[in-house]
């Protein structure tokens, strides 16, 4: 895209704008404006600080201490100027954004700050220029945009990159936590479920359950739904499917941890859970599982009984 931006009487300057990059004559003009900004950095910084502090009281940064806010502002403005001087993204910008991300500063602080910088700089340049016509104005706007936009892009990319990273880590962590299988005893395995169950998780639960049953050679699997807040038709459907699949591979599934309100919802919704055994608590379910595997809990003789039998034997003498 070639565009004639500025035509003066004495010399004709043609700005060729290719993908937002200024070339040829633009460079000279760019340098000129750049030096104006850098030489008057003190004034701009002062204006900028005033502008940024205006936002401070009515939003997110109000919780941050005065000193920290000041020093971060200083650092921020230094980073902006150093990238202006070097005409591009600097390692200082990277370091600065990384530091802010780690400290948990909001992205809006940076974007607001850069927008304020854009406003202040444009105002300053225009106030320095002798004549202001639309050509000159658009040129100045273009130029300042070319300085500020890459910085904004870079910062937004860094921030969103860090967020995406965190989200992906959390997703993995959630998946690991979502369907654990605990082999408590030979042939008895427990799967405690906590939190809401959606279709994706239900699939994961079924996979883990079946793989685990095969792996641990479990005769009985207890699915504990104490931690599942709501059991609606969909959740019940998934649980029934899992139980059926467990039966198909040759094991038995007991549903435990059915709270009174869940029992009420299940019946009110007309869900038929009659086909497989259910128990109110994990303890009862575990006892049922022991019975199924032909085992039982035997209480050892307590010390009281020992004394009683001793007394009995004494009396008998």
């Amino acid at each position, binding site marked *: 895209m070639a565009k004639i931006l500025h035509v003066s009487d004495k010399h004709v300057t043609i700005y060729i704008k290719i993908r937002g990059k200024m070339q040829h004559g633009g460079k000279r003009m760019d340098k000129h404006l750049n030096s104006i900004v850098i030489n008057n950095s003190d004034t701009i910084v002062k204006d900028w600080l005033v502008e940024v502090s205006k936002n401070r009281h009515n939003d997110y940064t109000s919780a941050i201490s005065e000193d920290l806010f000041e020093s971060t502002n200083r650092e921020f403005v230094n980073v902006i100027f150093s990238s202006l001087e070097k005409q591009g993204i600097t390692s200082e910008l990277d370091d600065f954004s990384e530091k802010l991300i780690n400290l948990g500063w909001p992205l809006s602080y940076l974007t607001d700050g850069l927008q304020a910088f854009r406003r202040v700089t444009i105002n300053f340049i225009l106030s320095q220029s002798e004549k202001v016509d639309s050509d000159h104005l658009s040129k100045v706007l273009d130029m300042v945009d070319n300085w500020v936009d890459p910085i904004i892009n870079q910062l937004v990319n860094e921030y969103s990159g860090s967020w995406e990273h965190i989200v992906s880590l959390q997703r993995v962590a959630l998946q690991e936590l979502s369907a654990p299988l605990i082999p408590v005893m030979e042939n008895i395995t427990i799967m405690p479920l906590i939190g809401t169950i959606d279709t994706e998780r239900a699939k994961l639960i*079924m*996979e883990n359950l*079946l*793989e685990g*049953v*095969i792996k641990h*050679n*479990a*005769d009985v699997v207890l699915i504990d739904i104490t931690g599942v807040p709501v059991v609606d038709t969909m959740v019940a459907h998934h649980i029934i*499917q899992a139980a*059926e*699949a*467990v*039966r*198909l*591979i*040759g*094991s038995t599934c007991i549903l435990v941890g059915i709270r009174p309100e869940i029992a009420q919802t299940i019946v009110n919704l007309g869900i038929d859970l009659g086909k497989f055994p259910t128990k109110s608590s994990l303890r009862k379910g575990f006892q049922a599982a022991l019975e199924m595997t032909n085992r039982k809990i035997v209480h050892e003789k307590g010390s009281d009984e020992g004394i009683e039998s001793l007394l009995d034997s004494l009396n008998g003498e």
Partner: protein
Amino acid sequence: MRIPILKLHNYLLISIQTDLDDKTAIQFQEDLLSKIHKSGATGVVIDLTSVDIIDSFIAKVLGDVVTMSDLMGAKVVLTGIQPAVAMTLIDLGIHLKDVQTALDLEQGLIKLRQELEE
């Protein structure tokens, strides 16, 4: 291809080592029923450990074989159904409700003995 049916005392053991196609399945059904008739077996274990795919037709045939054998006085236990197969069957809505299952051949034999003793 015919699926071999082994006799062990009162039981018949079948280990299916290939993916079943429709023809083999029907052939297997006939073979098993005539073997039950001939041998007078009271229990059958069908081991599906090496079967990776069961479609709705095969599932129907298996269900039928179980009912038919039951009619002829032989209890059937299916063993070693793979998790993936179980999930597919459930997704297809095939629950094989009246079929006994066990984790492996050993458990299957134990289950058969329990049932026959009752």
